């Protein structure tokens, strides 16, 4: 079966629940296929939790949710050893992190200490509790949501930790038509969040990954990628340019995007499609520049020449 067909069915399935957000759903899937973690940033009530729940369902992954609060401790996520009187030994009670898809809700509400415990797990794919290293289940995805940083009571994630998220997405307000449809659905008393059907099983996930690894990135495309990266490092609008990790993330996502469209090679359109989600949270505008990361991405898309000279 073609990758595209799988993806389309998954997108449709999620799209039934989260109305009018097809591009974001596609990008979120792309992020998961590329084995990356996803950061959803938006105001409360925009469907962040709904999206992550639906994604877990269509991929058939075990799913757990942690609501981050300011008094959450690392042990609350990773797990803790408890003395068991019956056989007089310590037994490890795994925390919610031992799952395939973890929804870390409102990650910027908790303290940096707890944040970094999670982020370490994200980077390593394993956790170390009480000196013992334990593997996390595979695949392991984190979908973290955060409120816009300027809200009160938040601990903004530092740039170094933002960099660990392959993509950052904003859902945004729904399209008026989609919103209307949502109202009507609620009014007619239809099911709200029915669990979506699983569309992609483990084998198919593996197949998609194989397809991604076979995607060809040509010389010309690498040149374009390099021009993009160089531009972020040389142009005065950027305080911080793309790191090599960021550049690799961009390439990985573009390859995945190509595979999701049943293409064996990457085209510049792929890069431009994933660029905002991959790059915007990694770019810091310089003090003189009025725009934010998204404006910088627009700049990149507009000014960096696709064709070499």
């Amino acid at each position, binding site marked *: 079966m073609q990758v595209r067909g799988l993806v389309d069915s998954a997108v449709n399935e999620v799209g039934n629940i989260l109305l009018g957000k097809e591009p974001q759903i596609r990008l979120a899937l792309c992020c998961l296929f590329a084995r990356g973690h996803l950061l959803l940033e938006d105001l409360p009530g925009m469907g962040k939790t709904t999206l992550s729940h639906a994604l877990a369902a269509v991929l058939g992954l075990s799913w757990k949710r942690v609501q981050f609060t300011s008094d959450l401790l690392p042990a609350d996520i990773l797990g803790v050893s408890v003395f068991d009187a019956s056989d007089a030994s310590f037994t490890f009670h795994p925390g919610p992190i031992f799952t395939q898809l973890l929804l870390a809700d409102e990650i910027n509400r908790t303290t940096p200490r707890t944040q970094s415990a999670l982020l370490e797990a994200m980077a390593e794919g394993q956790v170390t509790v009480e000196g013992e290293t334990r593997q996390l289940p595979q695949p392991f995805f984190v979908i973290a949501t955060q409120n816009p940083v300027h809200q009160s009571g938040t601990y903004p994630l530092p740039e170094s930790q933002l960099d660990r998220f392959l993509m950052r997405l904003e859902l945004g307000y729904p399209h008026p038509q989609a919103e209307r449809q949502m109202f009507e659905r609620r009014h007619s008393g239809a099911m709200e969040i029915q669990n979506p059907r699983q569309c992609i099983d483990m084998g198919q996930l593996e197949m998609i990954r194989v397809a991604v690894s076979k995607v*060809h990135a*040509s010389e*010309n*495309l690498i040149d374009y990628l390099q021009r993009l990266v160089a531009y972020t490092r*040389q142009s*005065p609008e950027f*305080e911080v340019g793309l790191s090599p990790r960021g550049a690799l993330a961009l390439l990985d996502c573009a390859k995945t995007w190509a595979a999701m469209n049943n293409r*064996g*090679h*990457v*085209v*510049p*359109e792929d890069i*431009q499609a994933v660029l905002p989600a991959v790059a915007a949270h990694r770019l810091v505008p*310089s*003090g*003189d520049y009025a725009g934010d990361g998204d404006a910088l991405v627009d700049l*990149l*898309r*507009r*000014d*960096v*020449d*696709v*064709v*070499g*000279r």
Partner: protein
Amino acid sequence: MNVLQQVPRNALMWIIISLFALVAPHIGRLPIWVLAVYVIAVVWRLQVHRGRWSFPGRWVKVAMTTSGFVGIYASYGTLVGLEPTVALLLTAFALKFIELSQRKDAYVLLFLGYFICITEFLFSQDLLITLYSVINVLLVTTALVALHQPGLDQFNRGTMRLAGVMLLQAVPLMVVLFFVFPRFGPLWTVPIKSHAAKTGMSDFMKPGDVASLSQSDEVAFRVKFDGEIPEKSALYWRGLVFSRLEQDVWSGLGYYDVPLEEQRPDEVAISGQPLRYSVIMESTQQNWLYGLRYARARSPGVMHSSDFRMMSPAPLESEYLYRVESWTDVPVDLDLSDWRRKTETKLPPQGNNRTRELALELRESAGSDEAFVEQVLEKFNSEDYVYTLQPGRLTGSNPIDDFLFQARRGFCEHYASAFVFMMRAADVPARVVAGYQGGEINPLNKTVIVHQFDAHAWAEVWLENRGWVRVDPTSAVSPLRIEMGLEEAMASEGSFLAAAPLSPLRYRSIPLLNQLRLRYDALTYRWQSWVVGFDSEQQFDLLHTLFGEISTRVFATLLLGSWALVLVPVAISLFFKRDTYPVSPLDKYYRLFCDRMAELGLIRGPGETPGHFAQRAVEALPGFADELRRITGLYNDLAYAGVKDKDELAQFTRAVSRFRPDRRRGLLEEDTTL
């Protein structure tokens, strides 16, 4: 702060290096605290760079500036004059460095650096100083270049290479400007070098003066003869004439001491071929010039006095070149005026009575003035008089008596002084002449190098029908001094340059060192005569011989031509360099395609992918849809799908070549009307 406006670390390092390099040649002239200011400034700025300290506040800056002024005033006693002004500039330079925070500050500082580099020439135009200044210019330019390399966060030596290349490119222009740029006279004058020591002879002489001058191995002047160099013993470089003896001090006549009608030198009947030579004086801060008797300067601006000296109207503040013609044999001043006779026979009313008696006695027995001179010389020669650099001090109230009858040890000024005293005591007009005698001949370029230790004093006696005649009493005591020079004359005493153990002149016996010394001296001479001595007159002569009449047109042509000399090769190399970054034929043809689309008003934005562009183009020009899709498809295949097919590339290039929408206007207009 904006990153663009920051001074990169590399630039900061180069600025610090140039800072110290610029102040280094001035160190000897600066009070020590100015150097401390430099160290403090650099430490402060580095601490600011490391984020430890902050920039000085406004009041700190005011305080530092004020104390700079006060310090200079305290050290020099004035703020006027060359040295205090330069010291002030250097202090300000260091203080400015502390508050260097943005690029514009660095510009100010570095342009000031060029200016400071020039100030060194106010003190010396020596060859080595010039070379050093070139290095300084290179350093300052390097710092300027580094300022424009924002990416370099580490100290980088490659910057200097770039700056060096840039300076080399400027060399032809520099050379042309040196020759053609108009040499203006000074637009203003500063009371220059109020503190600089006067060197060489002074305008009065007391016993011991010449002897102390003989301890110096500095060069007084260099002479180049047009023809053969005369005998060393004939080289009496006449500079000063001392006609007045007061309180045991010989001094020259001031300008107002001479009556008006006597101020111009008498006409001298010249005959025979003159010796022609040019002299390059080192700076002395004094007015007198040296020449062989009877000398007439050929260079304009040299004055002649009634006692046949040559003078420069202004003190010599830098090397000075003048040309002279000398007729060594013609008699001068055959008729002595009454005033002159009175002046040249005047003695203090009393003192040195034994000498006076001896003089009268000898004159009586001699019968004529000539014989009298011979007798006195004979006395010096036959009796046990010693020529020495260490005569001991004569402190009595009758120093000449003491010298002639007791000590009998003296240097040239003692003999000259005693001789003239005796002449005058017998009413024979006589005077002391000071200058240099002999000199070292540099075999490499046939120049005569006259050192300070060649300083000498001798006498002139006026004889009937012969005029003023040179008499050197020293030659009667120590003929070696005149024939071989001071070193030979002092060989037994070992006192030659005793105070300067490191002087290269003391090691003339080592051939290699001597060769090096002479070679460097020859180089210095060439430098002085070609570069330092290149004045407006020589410039005019040179340009005239090269280009005939000098007009604005010639001037402009020269300037532009020199620019072209550099810029044309650069332009040509740039023109060919474009091809050193090869454009793949693929991209080249795609761009050609884009150009043709642009002619139709469809311009691809740089960030627009070929696919998106094709979409837009098809919407705008449906008539070309097939071709557009074909070309874009081929391009995408070749560029991104990894197709390495030669045929496909050929297809693509052919498709683009044939794509000439502008030749199918009809079709196009049809589209646009739709």
